[in-house]
C-alpha cells in the first residue's frame, strides 16, 4: 500500500453500559454492544453510506469514525495515526489530536442544534474559524463565509447571515450547517441522517449540493441514512459503497449494483422492500420478516443475529455466527450470511419451525 488511508477502522467495537440513561428501554443495567467488530477504510474523496434501522449502531459507528466516540476495542486511525493514541499521548503523535478532530467534521440529523438559537448565523459560523484559524482577520473570515454562502446558493449572503436560526427554512439551515463544516476544510464529513428531516423534494437538491461540494473541497463523506433510496442516490452519484448495519455489525457491504440490484443478505432485501418504489415493485404482499421488531440489543440472539427475523433462517443460523463471505470475489465487499456461500452446510440444515410473529418489549 502506497500510503496510509485517510481513515481506517480496525476491529472496532463499542460497548455501552446502561446506567438507567438513554438505553433504559429494557430495564436493568446491561451492556449493549452498539458496534461489533467493524473494520473499514475510507480514502480521499471517497463516500461511504451506512444504512440500517434505528438502534443498529450506525450513529455510534459514525461518531467513532470521527473520533467523537472512543471504541471499547479496536483502533481508529487517521492517516496512519491512531486517533486515541494521539489524544492520550500527544507527544508521540505524528498528527495532533486537535488537527484530527478538525479534519473530521459532523453534520447532525437536527442541523439546527449546531447553531446557537440566540446568535446570528454569521456569529455562529465565525466561531469555528476563530478557533481553528486564529490568524485570520475579521474581514477574511467574513469573506470565506460569504463565498461559501454564494456557493451553496444562499445569496446575497448578508441576507442570510444576519438572521437567527429560526428565521431560516429547513433547507437553508442545512446549508448553513454544511457551510460551517466546510469552512474548516475537513477531510471527512459525517452526515448523520442530515437530509432525513427535509421534504422529499428538497432531499435530492441537498444531496446534489453536497456531492458538488465534494469535488470542490475534496472531502470524503460518511453518510448515515435509514433510507436505501437516499443511500443509493449518494452511492451511485459518488461511485461510493453502501454498508448495511444490523445490531452493531456490518452485515453486507458493496457497490450500488451489489447492494441495490443484487443483495445477498436477507436483511438488505428487507430494507429494499421497505424502500417502496412507485413502479415495478415486486413481492409487495409478502412480509420479508418473520418478526417486525428488532430484538433486545442487550441480549443478542445466538448465531446469526438476524435469525429471529430472517425469513430464510435455518437451524444452523441459530448456532453459527456468519463471518464475512466474499461472494463477489472482491476482497472488500462481503455479506454476513451463509446463503452467500454455495457450499455452506446451511443448505442442508433444516428450516426453523414457525414461531408466532409477535414480539415482546
Amino acid at each position, binding site marked *: 500500500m502506497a500510503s496510509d488511508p485517510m481513515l481506517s477502522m480496525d476491529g472496532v467495537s463499542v460497548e455501552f453500559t446502561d446506567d438507567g440513561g438513554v438505553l433504559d428501554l429494557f430495564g436493568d443495567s446491561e451492556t449493549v454492544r452498539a458496534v461489533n467488530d467493524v473494520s473499514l477504510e475510507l480514502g480521499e474523496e471517497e463516500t461511504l453510506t451506512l444504512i440500517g434501522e434505528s438502534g443498529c449502531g450506525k450513529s455510534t459507528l459514525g461518531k467513532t469514525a470521527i473520533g467523537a466516540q472512543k471504541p471499547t476495542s479496536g483502533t481508529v486511525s487517521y492517516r496512519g495515526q491512531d486517533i486515541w493514541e494521539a489524544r492520550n499521548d500527544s507527544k508521540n503523535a505524528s498528527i495532533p489530536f486537535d488537527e484530527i478532530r478538525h479534519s473530521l467534521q459532523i453534520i447532525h440529523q437536527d442541523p439546527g442544534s449546531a447553531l446557537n438559537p440566540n446568535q446570528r448565523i454569521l456569529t455562529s459560523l465565525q466561531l469555528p474559524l476563530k478557533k481553528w484559524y486564529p490568524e485570520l482577520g475579521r474581514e477574511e473570515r467574513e469573506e470565506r463565509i460569504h463565498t461559501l454562502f454564494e456557493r451553496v446558493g444562499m445569496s446575497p449572503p448578508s441576507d442570510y447571515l444576519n438572521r437567527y436560526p429560526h428565521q431560516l427554512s429547513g433547507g437553508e439551515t442545512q446549508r448553513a450547517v454544511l457551510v460551517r463544516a466546510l469552512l474548516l476544510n475537513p477531510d471527512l464529513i459525517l452526515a448523520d441522517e442530515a437530509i432525513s428531516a427535509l421534504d422529499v423534494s428538497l432531499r435530492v437538491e441537498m444531496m446534489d449540493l453536497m456531492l458538488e461540494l465534494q469535488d470542490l473541497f475534496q472531502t470524503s463523506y460518511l453518510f448515515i441514512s435509514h433510507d436505501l433510496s437516499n443511500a443509493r*442516490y449518494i452511492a451511485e452519484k459518488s461511485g461510493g459503497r453502501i454498508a448495511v448495519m444490523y445490531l452493531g455489525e456490518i452485515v453486507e457491504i458493496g457497490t450500488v449494483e451489489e447492494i441495490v440490484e443484487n443483495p445477498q443478505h436477507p436483511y438488505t432485501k428487507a430494507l429494499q422492500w421497505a424502500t417502496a418504489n412507485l413502479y415495478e415493485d415486486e413481492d409487495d404482499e409478502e412480509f420479508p420478516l418473520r418478526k*417486525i421488531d428488532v430484538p433486545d440489543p442487550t441480549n443478542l440472539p445466538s448465531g446469526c443475529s438476524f435469525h429471529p427475523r430472517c425469513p430464510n433462517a435455518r437451524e444452523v443460523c441459530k448456532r453459527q455466527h456468519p463471518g464475512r463471505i466474499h461472494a463477489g470475489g472482491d476482497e472488500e465487499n462481503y455479506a454476513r450470511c451463509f446463503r452467500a456461500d454455495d457450499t455452506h452446510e446451511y443448505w442442508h440444515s433444516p428450516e426453523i419451525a414457525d414461531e408466532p410473529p409477535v414480539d415482546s*418489549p
Partner: protein
Amino acid sequence: MSNSDTIVEVRDLNVTFEMNRGQSRVVRDADLDVARNETLGIIGESGSGKSMLASSFLNAVVEPGVSTGEVTYHPDDGEPVSVLDLSESELNRFRWEEIAMVFQGAMSSFNPVTTIRTHFRETLQDHNRDIPAGMDRARELLESVYLDPDRILDSYAHELSGGMKQRALIALSLVLEPDVLVLDEPTAALDLLMQRSIVTLLRDLQAEYDLTLVFITHDLPLLTKLADRIAVMYAFNIVEIGTTDDLLYNASHPYTRALLDTTPDLNVPVEEMNIIEGSKPDPVDHIPGCSYHPRCPMADERCRSDDPPMMTVSNSHESACFYYDEADDAVTISAAPETRPASGQSAATDGGEN
C-alpha cells in the same frame, strides 16, 4: 366516486388562522368524498394543508384555527352528522366511536406513568363500555398489530420502541370500534422498515375490521402500497384525485406529475432524478388564477387569471387543470412504464413489465 356510498362528505371547507401578517388560509374551498371502506390517501408537501383538511374530519383543527363549510359524516345506519356543529361532549364521543385519529406526535400521547392496560381500560370506562368485552377486543387488536398482549398491556410507553408504541396506539384508537380511522403521518418518525410493516398491517386491519382509512402523508411510494384512491393537495386544496392507478399511470395535473417525477425511485437512473423548481406557496398569499401557475411549465394567460375547476378525466379521476389532457406530454415521469398495467390495483399487483 360521488354516487357510491359516501361516509365522509366535505364541502367548501375552509380552515383559517388569523395572523399578524394577515389571514392565513390553510385549506381553501375543499370538496372531498370519502367512500365507505376505502383507503383514501392524502398526499402533499408539508404546509400544503393536508393535515388541516384531515383534522377537520373530526373538527380537530387546533385553536386559533377555524374550520368553516360542511363536513358530514354518514353513519352506517342513522342520521347524517354535521361534524363542525357538534358540541364538545358530542365530539368527545364522536372522535372515538365514529372517526378516530392517530397523528404523528401521538406517540407521546401515552401517559408515561400508567401502563398500556390502563389506557385501554380508562378509554373503555370513559365511554361506558363493558370492560371485559372491551379488553378482549383490545387483546385481539394488539395481536393484529403484531404485539404480544400479555407483555404489552403491562408495559409503560417508554419501555416500547417507537414502532411498538405507534402500533399500540393504532390498537387503542380502534378499541371503541370507530368506522373511520384517520392517520396523519403515523409512521413518519419511524424507520422505513417499520413504516412499510405498519402499512402492510393496516391493509389487513382495514379488511378485518371493515374500516375506512384516511392516510395522510408526504410519502408517495408508501401511500401507493396502501391507498385505493389518492387525493393530491397543493396550495391548500386538492388538485387531483383518482384511484392509485389513475395517479400512477395517468396523472393529469402537472403538479402530481412533477411530484411523481421527483420521487426517488430505486429503479430510476440517478441522472434522471429531478426536483420541482420554485418555492411553496405562502398561506397568507392570495394566488390569482391557478395556484400552481407560478411553478407550472404549462401555465398561460388563462391560468394566470382563472382558477381551474375540477375537470373530469374519467369517472374515477378528476384534475384541477385546464390542460389536464396535455399534462402527460408537458411533464414526463422518468420512472413510469410506457403502458399502464392491464388490470386492477397497483397496490395489489406487480406494476407492469420488468
